[in-house]
């Protein structure tokens, strides 16, 4: 579990599958409007695409892919995106998280709410991905090859 795996099948399959899993996770976030999906599900898929490299190659080699220090800041950025949308709508005159008062140049009405829902889902997906990878890295604690 802590060493780099010696079987070449596991190494090759994990390295080939990881970008496709992350692409599929991005697809699930972006298509949350038209099919089942959304922020939480897409964030979990993105985290799975990152964790499969950490499990197959060990912690030293997977630093080249996604560093340990990037996990928690990604989670913080997701929370801040959500809060920033709420504060912008509050400063524009409405209540907290009332999407009618958000500013996107040139769009009003129901389309404005649709675009703001997409921004909120991206924020939630980023937060979930960052926190799941950060919890795994804290449990591993830098040990392992």
């Amino acid at each position: 579990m802590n060493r780099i795996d010696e079987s070449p099948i596991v190494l090759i399959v994990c390295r080939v599958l990881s970008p496709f899993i992350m692409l599929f996770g991005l697809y699930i976030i972006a298509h949350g409007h038209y099919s089942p999906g959304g922020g939480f599900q897409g964030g979990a898929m993105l985290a799975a695409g990152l964790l499969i490299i950490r499990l197959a190659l060990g912690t030293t080699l997977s630093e080249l892919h996604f560093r340990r220090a990037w996990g928690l800041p990604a989670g913080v950025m997701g929370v801040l995106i959500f809060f920033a949308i709420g504060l912008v709508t509050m400063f524009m005159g409405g209540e907290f998280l009332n999407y009618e008062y958000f500013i996107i140049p040139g769009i009003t009405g129901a389309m404005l709410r649709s675009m703001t829902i997409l921004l909120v889902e991206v924020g939630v997906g980023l937060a979930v991905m960052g926190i799941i990878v950060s919890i795994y890295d804290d449990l591993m604690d830098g040990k392992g090859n």
Partner: protein
Amino acid sequence: MEFFLGHYAYWFIIVLLCIGLYTIMFKRNLVKKLIGLSIFQSSIILFWVSSASKWNATVPIYDSAYSIENTANYINPLPHTLMLTAIVVGVATLGVAFALFVLVYKRFKILNEDVIIQEMKSESE
């Protein structure tokens, strides 16, 4: 017969709940208790989601072939929303529990609840 067809899903979910409760109560390793907790949470989520169905209704995504004025065409979307939150809370609980297990193992060198309670009693005397 109608009664059995309408209620058998609830009885299967109660069996799953009792399996999870048995694992929490009767196993002595801490990690096995955590697996029982996860089975328990899954049974509750399954119960809520299965109670939101309707006969001859489709998924809650707007389709222009089924009108939304007649609400018997779409299943109830509210329990699905609430259970998304519940799943994420379950993941967070599991993560914190594993962090606590790492610290307990560093201190006691074993993850068996009888031995841990024995050590805690003998060092407080």
